[in-house]
């Protein structure tokens, strides 16, 4: 057993980080937010009655001019060219031939920079949906009550009949709500049957994105605590602030161990654990980061709210905490714990 990253994995992670920071650094992030923010204001009345249609729609692009789009198609193609979507496809099929652990490292980096778009759905569609692997086609999917990026996707997997747009809390994740089905909360024991391979992978990659975001907000809080001075010393010298930061790191480290382990085992219970720990690390980490930043943290200009809103959005994917907790509880009586 040697749980540490291999040299190749470290290099891959660094390469992906460099790519994302170069191509979707802070300025690009803020520009995308501004685009989405402006569009939201102009669109709001129109969107209230705009209904989406079901099934693999093509050419939804026609509805609005390129200028109004939030998803950067150019960036999407660049991700495709860099192999992000084809990362796990075999080389014989034109993919990069990497495994789950490598994909998880890449999604962690995506979470770090808040890369927008239906990344997971498109990654999962590579090899099934023509053009997805190359980043020519944007794919989203309906895996629960919400669909992300419905209007901007070229292909939708799953039934989205009756989808209604929400005004999304995260400016960079457009959302549609699907009509309620039977509405019953899932009970213990039901999960083994309900698992789908895509659902599990969505959960795992979501956990990886949450991990990246949590690590980023922890670093941002620590950096601020080192430099911001009050009472004649850096606020990081105050224990109340130190303890917020220490709590953030402790959550990140436990989440990291859980997420990486789940990427190696691909075990559903490991994935549920990874998801719970990573959701917690991201959501609470963003909150604490905001607290450490004080008044600046509450401004639109600070990136903290973007991390928090995206983290909230991600917690709803693939069944959310309820599903993971039930899965994990189920395991206790199934005797494999």
């Amino acid at each position, binding site marked *: 057993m040697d*749980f540490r990253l291999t040299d190749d994995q470290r290099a891959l992670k660094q390469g992906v980080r460099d790519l994302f920071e170069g191509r979707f650094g802070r300025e690009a992030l803020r520009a995308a937010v501004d685009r989405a923010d402006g569009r939201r204001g102009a669109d709001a009345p129109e969107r209230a009655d705009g209904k989406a249609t079901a099934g693999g729609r093509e050419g939804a692009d026609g509805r609005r001019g390129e200028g109004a789009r939030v998803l950067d198609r150019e960036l999407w193609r660049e991700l495709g060219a860099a192999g992000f979507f084809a990362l796990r496809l075999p080389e014989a099929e034109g993919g990069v031939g990497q495994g789950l652990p490598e994909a998880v490292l890449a999604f962690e980096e995506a979470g770090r920079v808040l890369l927008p778009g239906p990344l997971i759905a498109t990654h999962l569609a590579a090899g099934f949906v023509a053009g997805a692997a190359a980043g020519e086609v944007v794919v989203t999917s309906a895996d629960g009550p919400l669909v992300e990026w419905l209007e901007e996707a070229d292909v939708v997997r799953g039934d989205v009949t009756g989808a209604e747009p929400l005004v999304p809390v995260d400016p960079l994740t457009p959302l549609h709500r699907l009509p309620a089905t039977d509405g019953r909360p899932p009970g213990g024991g039901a999960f083994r049957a309900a698992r789908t391979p895509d659902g599990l992978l969505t959960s795992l990659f979501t956990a990886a994105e949450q991990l990246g975001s949590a690590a980023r907000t922890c670093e941002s809080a620590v950096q601020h605590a080192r430099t911001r001075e009050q009472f004649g010393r850096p606020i990081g*010298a105050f224990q109340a602030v130190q303890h917020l930061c220490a709590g953030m790191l*402790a959550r990140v480290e436990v989440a990291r161990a*859980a997420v990486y382990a789940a990427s190696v085992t691909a075990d559903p219970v490991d994935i549920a654990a990874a998801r719970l720990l990573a959701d917690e690390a991201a959501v609470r980490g963003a909150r604490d980061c905001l607290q450490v930043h004080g008044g600046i943290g509450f401004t639109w200009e600070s990136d903290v709210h973007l991390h928090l809103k995206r983290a909230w959005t991600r917690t709803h994917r693939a069944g959310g905490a309820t599903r993971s907790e039930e899965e994990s509880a189920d395991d206790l009586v199934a005797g494999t714990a």
Partner: protein
Amino acid sequence: MDLTYTPEEEEFRARLRTWLAGVLPELPPKPSPRDWPARRAYDLGWQRMLYDAGYAGLHWPVDAGGRGATPTQHLIYLEETEKAGAPYVGANFVGLLHAGPTIASEGSAGQRARWLPPVLRGEEVWCQGFSEPDAGSDLAALRTRAWRDGDDYVVSGSKIWTSHAEVADWCELLVRTDPAARKHRGITWLAMPMDAPGITVRPLRTLAGSTEFAEVFLDEVRVPVANRVGAENDGWRVTMVTLSYERGTAFVGEVVACRRVLSEVAREARKNGRWDDAVLRRRLGRLNAEFRALWRLTQWNVSEAQSAGGVPGAGGSVFKLRYSHARQELYDAAAEVLGPESLDLGREWTLDRLSSLSYTIAAGTSQIQRNIVAERILGLPRGR
């Protein structure tokens, strides 16, 4: 990232498992947790069995009498012994998990030869005389004095919260040898025989009703200078070695034990109908996730330690911080499952719930662990 064990490691696991399956049924019944002499005998007996089978001091270096096992083998050992329900280290805790490793790393050849074999053979019990009434979290404020008189140090002062003091043969003792030096400078690490004249042990009653720990009064106790580990006034550095072992590896096996208890709690909930309560069920599910993640963190830390020559790093503080709280939550959830029966001291979980309260205090409080994480790992400016 490789979580599979090598064929050698798997073979080691299989051998250990077979051995455990053979010896555990032969063990005498567990003594009452309040009967210290019987507990000492029981714990030492188990240690002797480990020694005879070649499992004593597995992770200690070979020149210290250990087996020189890799951190991974040690992990397997902890996992398997806990899974099989083997006795816990108990009275051997200090000797095996931190005094011993400290002597192995900082002691002279003669000191290693004198003190380590009896720990491994289950003949001598150690206790830890660090804390004092006015020096707990602020350990370096300790005042117990030691001055030279010929070949001896003469020690006067008092220690408190000394676990196992009633039944210990030796004490890893911190004393102040230079009162004029700055706080951290004038401290020395001594091995004190607990039968020396001038030592009075007064057991303290814990909130669980037992006498786990004691006050130790030292009235001109003579300790040979030869019992000093490390240089005079260099005891703080030696202490850091001790504390890194105490926080780094000492709780690892307990995570496995907690996972076992959590499964038992879930089974109990199924039996008494509490499992139908979705809120409780989900709470147990979340705890399962937490303990799984803590086990993964352990594997991560072990891999890191293996590459760093086996010494646990400051990451132990992250682990200790999370683990101590998770353990308390586990027994709170167990109490929820038991309902009113959780007020019955006769239930094992009730006693364990009480003792879990010490986990966020002993071996450095959670507040102190957070200070360590903030200042030593995150590099934030020093407070105060």
